[in-house]
């Protein structure tokens, strides 16, 4: 693979968000594979308990324990985990307060449930806190992970999710929670972090991506690239596309072609093909408009192709190659 310019050298935390249904998890997984190329060690993290990563890598459900899910070209490793708020809290308490018995009592009194399900924002503080810990973890003086990729909540919730620590700062003026929140906020706003947005070339996802990029920037969170997913190859040349859109392609010519190939050339079939061509033209025209909107966001744009058979593990490697070729990793 050509190892030319890489756009995000120096970034340790890649946050991947996008509107629901745009392929956020697939993109995060492909990015992790691409970043792991050439002997790197990458951690892929999910925080919404969807087990989406396990599905794309076709491995058993992930737990809080970091597990290897794939090898990348040149000896790289992709590890993955599903961060869960309760486990993160217990780990945090153990790590910083050596709680032992008190943790059990907290659990018994419902304090743990309170903190992870009811208390405002604490859940997100814990989830981002675990990501922070993974990014910062060192062994023998060097980072355990070369990069961490976070399969984050969707665009509509991303700013609140990442900014939760800044909100806590408003709630807790001093104390240990405040210190923890401050450190996380510092990492998230540093050049070591970028937030990538995944979109499709459709109105709502593009609109949400543009809004998301603006909101992230307003919250001082570093916006990374825009990944346009499910890009289709043009099958018709430009001049035919225009005719297809006007439903003025030559029906007789289509029928003659069908007959030559030994297919039924009934009016229904010919008409069906022409209707499909018109839909295709309308779709491409829309995609072109939406692509212009994506370019207007003013961030680096990467494209991922639509794979006819859907994404399996093989397809994931293919998508990772495309990201590498385009300099995203």
């Amino acid at each position: 693979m050509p190892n030319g310019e890489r756009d995000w050298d120096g970034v340790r935390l890649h946050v991947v968000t996008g509107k629901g249904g745009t392929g956020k998890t697939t993109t995060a997984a492909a990015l992790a594979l691409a970043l792991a190329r050439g002997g790197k060690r990458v951690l892929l993290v999910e925080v919404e308990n969807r087990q989406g990563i396990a599905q794309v890598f076709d491995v058993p459900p992930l737990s809080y324990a970091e597990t290897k899910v794939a090898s990348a070209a040149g000896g790289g490793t992709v590890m993955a985990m599903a961060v869960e708020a309760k486990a993160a809290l217990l780990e945090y308490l153990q790590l910083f307060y050596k709680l032992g018995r008190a943790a059990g009592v907290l659990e018994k009194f419902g304090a743990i449930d309170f903190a992870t399900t009811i208390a405002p924002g604490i859940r997100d503080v814990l989830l981002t806190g675990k990501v922070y810990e993974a990014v910062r973890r060192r062994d023998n003086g060097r980072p355990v992970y070369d990069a961490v990729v976070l399969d984050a909540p969707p665009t509509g919730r991303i700013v609140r999710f990442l900014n939760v620590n800044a909100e806590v700062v408003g709630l807790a003026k001093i104390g240990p929670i405040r210190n923890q929140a401050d450190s996380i906020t510092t990492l998230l706003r540093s050049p070591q972090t970028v937030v990538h947005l995944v979109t499709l070339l459709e109105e709502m996802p593009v609109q949400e991506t543009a809004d998301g990029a603006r909101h992230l920037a307003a919250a001082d969170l570093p916006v990374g690239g825009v990944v346009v997913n499910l890009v289709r190859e043009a099958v018709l040349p430009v001049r035919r596309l225009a005719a297809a859109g006007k439903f003025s392609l030559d029906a007789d010519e289509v029928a003659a072609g069908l007959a030559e190939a030994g297919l039924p050339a009934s009016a229904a079939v010919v008409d069906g093909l022409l209707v499909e061509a018109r839909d295709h033209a309308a779709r491409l025209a829309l995609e072109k408009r939406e692509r212009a909107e994506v370019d207007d966001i003013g961030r680096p744009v990467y494209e991922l192709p639509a794979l006819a058979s859907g994404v399996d593990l093989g397809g994931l490697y293919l998508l990772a190659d495309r990201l590498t070729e385009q300099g995203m990793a």
Partner: protein
Amino acid sequence: MSPTTRGRGRRPATGSPRLDVDALLRDRGTRIIVCCGAGGVGKTTTAAALALRAAEQGRSVVVLTIDPARRLAQSMGLEQLDNTPREVKGVDAAAGGRLDAMMLDMKRTFDEIVESHSTPEKAQQILANPFYQALSSSFAGTQEYMAMEKLGQLRAEADRGGTWDLVVVDTPPSRSAPDFLDAPQRLGSFLDGRFIKLLLAPAKVGGKAYLKVFSSGVNLVTNTLTKVLGAQVLRDIQTFVAALDTMFGGFRERADVTYRLLQEKGTSFVVVAAPEGDALREASYFVDRLAAERMPLSGLVLNRVHDVVAGSLSAERSIAAAETLTERKVHPLTAQLLRLHAERAQVATREKALTTRFTAAHPDVPIARVPAFAQDVHDLDGLRQVGRDLTA
């Protein structure tokens, strides 16, 4: 327990029964329709299309949307987030119906509950508490809880004033599908829980007697919380909980009422999905969950379905024929159209296979399919078209 299904159409020779949307909307017994499903599958659009169709067939409808796309919101006259239902302009009222729409303002809904359940002074105290402010605007689950609360309010208003005979609700884009079912109960169990009593203990008069109820763990917990949260945060929480104490009964009662409302015969759940793995998995999960909660399911709306038009040609035959034409260097146009058709047929086949996973597990759940549009829906005509597709 199998899900209760209403509005069921005739069952075709094979496959799932068709969801008879018009029968559901016309049935005056249908008082509430809840649209739920994974994020990004067109829940809001489906809710709006159902509401509009019901209104134009003569029902008096209010639709509660959670987070509509900007242009869809504008098309319904929803320019502001003010918790007030407003009449949608441009609705055909020939059949005697009407459509009102509103967008959920979660913080305001919460504030209103506080205000209606406590004295003005106490309400002020709660509203000014930093912990309350964070809870009401960012608590994971507040939106779900407030959506259900608003549904209860709208329904009560409908019963009282007779303005509406149908309430259609969209559900929040949850982390996972059943969040809005769980949120009220979660809050309820928290309010009933030992933790709240523990938090209340120091603030209560005669706290000492109260404390005796607990083991020596109390001090350990309080000390730990102070250590972890800091004294100031804990104090805020305690003040908040103490101020809220008088409202607890009301909160729990409302959560229970809303929950029972969702189990009533007049309520219909419509699960919305797209023919994608995640969305259908969520839909499956939701159907099971509704059955377990004994909440009435009407059926599944499957959005963005890709169908072939030239149905008699398989993808394989089309590709082979296109290759033949290309080899012979003749009829390039036909070859291109065949390739295009093959792509579309492949997508349709994949979607069908994914849908089968759902239908195989839930053969009795009626389904309405809506084809994929090139354009998004952002006006009433677009919503009418979705309504027609839902009933086609």
